[in-house]
């Protein structure tokens, strides 16, 4: 049953899962309606955020509740360019409502698409590097790190809401009609954007994969499991952590920009505390520590949320919240962990020809019993 040829086997093992996810995504434009394709494209941007979050949380062990902030920064950088493109020579509409006479100086560079695209990546990375360096240098860890990033997100959204004249306030930046000269909402443009998003997702997936398989990735996991040992081995955890944090922020920024292109608006409600927690749920459901799990998780959760709220608009939160809480309880390693464990058991039984009860004596580090309740207290 299993392929005998070991080269083929290796190929299937290392590429099977990603291809299995990629293929349906590639044919999706042929079968989906415009609306569903647009929705799926939006979910793919979420998958990019999830990849970055998985890198820092699943591999690095640091849960960032600030991904929404970076997502928002990337989104705003892109939206500023698109708004200027749409407005042409006139002042963006929300500025004239707010009584501005001239374009603020820091908006000027965003007339250039190159600057905007660079800012999409570099702005979140710069902020993450600065914050990360300070935070990690003072050895802030675990829950503290999570809550500090949450605090940052809150500050940023308060500031963005408060500075209506330059950021569009609660409304955010809306009504982005064109993108590099094309009509943003047209079906053709949306299909192209879908493929661009898919391409970015694929490329970033490969990048993350390369990273996690490299020495860097191993160090990251080692640091997650025992930071002091890594420190004593002569590595500097501060640099390492800052780097990963910045990387995940940059990915969130890219996702934010792609989100803006597809959805046509960015507002503080996409960068607040609640979206940031939602981003974490994607990785948690998919399974932290497996990159493909993060991608599947983001798509699965978003799909579930849309489907539930469309079917039961009045009470969907009840089901969504319960399902989510249950999945955290019952699938501590997420969907991918669950599959890894149970399907492995099944297939092993089949290949070994053993039909007896499996499980009790199974020694499987990835799916072993939970840590005793007393640790970490």
């Amino acid at each position, binding site marked *: 049953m299993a392929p005998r040829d070991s080269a083929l086997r290796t190929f299937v093992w*290392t590429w099977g899962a990603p291809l299995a996810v990629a293929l349906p995504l590639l044919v999706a434009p042929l079968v989906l309606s415009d609306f569903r394709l647009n929705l799926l494209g939006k979910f793919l941007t979420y998958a990019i955020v999830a990849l970055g979050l998985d890198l820092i949380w699943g591999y690095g062990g640091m849960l960032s509740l600030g991904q929404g902030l970076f997502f928002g920064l990337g989104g705003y950088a892109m939206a500023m360019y698109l708004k200027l493109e749409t407005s042409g020579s006139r002042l963006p509409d929300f500025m004239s409502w707010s009584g501005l006479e001239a374009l603020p100086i820091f908006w000027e560079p965003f007339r250039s698409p190159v600057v905007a695209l660079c800012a999409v990546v570099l702005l979140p990375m710069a902020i993450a590097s600065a914050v990360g360096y300070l935070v990690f240098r003072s050895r802030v860890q675990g829950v503290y790190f999570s809550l500090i990033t949450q605090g940052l997100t809150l500050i940023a959204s308060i500031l963005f809401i408060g500075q209506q004249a330059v950021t569009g306030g609660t409304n955010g930046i809306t009504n*982005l009609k064109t993108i590099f000269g094309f009509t943003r909402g047209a079906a053709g443009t949306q299909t192209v954007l879908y493929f661009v998003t898919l391409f970015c997702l694929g490329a970033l997936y490969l990048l993350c994969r390369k990273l996690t398989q490299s020495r860097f990735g191993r160090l990251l996991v080692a640091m997650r499991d025992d930071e002091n040992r890594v420190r004593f081995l002569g590595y500097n955890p501060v640099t390492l952590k800052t780097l990963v944090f910045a990387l995940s922020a940059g990915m969130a920024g890219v996702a934010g920009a792609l989100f803006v292109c597809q959805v046509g608006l960015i507002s503080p409600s996409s960068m607040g505390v609640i979206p940031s927690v939602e981003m974490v749920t994607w990785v948690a459901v998919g399974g932290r*520590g497996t990159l493909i799990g993060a991608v599947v998780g983001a798509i699965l959760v978003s799909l579930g949320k849309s489907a539930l709220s469309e079917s039961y608009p009045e009470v969907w939160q009840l089901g969504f919240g319960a399902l989510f809480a249950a999945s955290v309880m019952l699938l501590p390693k997420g969907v991918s962990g669950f599959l890894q464990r149970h399907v492995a058991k099944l297939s092993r039984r089949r290949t070994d020809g053993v039909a007896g009860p499996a499980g009790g004596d199974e020694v499987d580090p990835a799916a072993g019993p939970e840590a005793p309740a007393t640790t970490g207290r």
Partner: protein
Amino acid sequence: MYTSGLDVEDRPAAGTSRRRALCVAMAALAGAALLSACGKANEEAPAPGTTPAAPASDSASIKVGVLHSLSGTMSISEVAVKDATLLAIEEINKAGGVLGKQLVPVVEDGASDWPTFNEKARKLVQQDAVAVVFGGWTSASRKAMLPSFEELNGLLFYPVQYEGLEQSPNIFYTGAEPSQQIVPAVDYLLEKGKKRIYLLGSDYVFPRTANKIIKAQLASKGGELAGEEYLPLGGTEVSTIISKISAAKPDAIFNTLNGDSNVAFFKQFKDAGYTADKLPVLSVSVAEEEVRGIGADNIAGHLVSWNYYQTTDTPENKKFVDAYKAKYGATRVTDDPIEAGYFGVYLWKMAVEKAKSTEVAKVKEAVKAGGIEYNAPEGLVRLDGKNQHTWKTVRIGAVRKDGLIDEVWSSGKPVQPDPYLSAYPWAKELAAK
């Protein structure tokens, strides 16, 4: 700390069978997820890539969308509007429907989240091919939906008063714009000799724009700005703002706070020793529904400005209030946005019947020709052919001890909508299109 030993993905030579199994399972999972999405798409939508066919006009029913926040912070206000819209749809169906067809409401939840409003608006227009959508409350939700309706050529009936300075070809506005609510309210205060006015609002677009209008109006009419302060949305810590107000010694407060902040403000304002006689507050986002949450004794005597109150004395209103209470419970109240969410459906019905079609272009054409008038609970309302806003009677009211609102001033007749305030010389600078 999360430290249990996860495998690093795709580490060669480890857990080989597990790895393969993961591949297979992931494939199955992803395939299933996508298939379900496709299945959904296929059953709901016409062939991909084509625009929806003429919306449901040859079947026995017409789909209409209802899009409000049913969860999240805005649901405190929006659920009641959704209820009123559904009531109107039910009444119309009982009376034979529109063009002889029954209306089928498709309800969606905007979840107090602007990108969600955008998504659901697209879903309603593109996927469900509804003839019209009734929905929205905050300006942010309207701004998020607006591009979708314009791109897809959908139709939105927006039922809430707003800051004006907007006129989308795909939106009919059944709530008031500033000249039908804010401008007369400020005039009323000035007439009553309240010259020093303090502007208090939530930190978002409507209050900031409204206050810009008010400042221009005060400057031209001899009023005086006593101060201007904004509270974060949802903020409930108002003691410092009340101290600032005390220090400024205004004659009146013009209040554009939203939602929960109103509750905190009025409760604590009263406890700071202020009554309506001493320092009246005129609110434009507090209606009967909100008064219930604030507590009538905390806000009694203060002023509000709207186009409709539950006490408005018309035969249509009596019927409306009775029907609403019969359907949703005797303790429920009606108010301005609820009423606008209700009569909007009737206005749309009249436009459709005049156009003899639910097609957006024809409906708009029918409105443009004029004469879409309806005897709403608030009195006669008329859709303006030019700017797609609604002619509405302006009413200033005072909150009673029992939580209802008494009219203390009225424009007497429907006021022509003027979203860009073009009739007011002092508003020239604001109205730059």
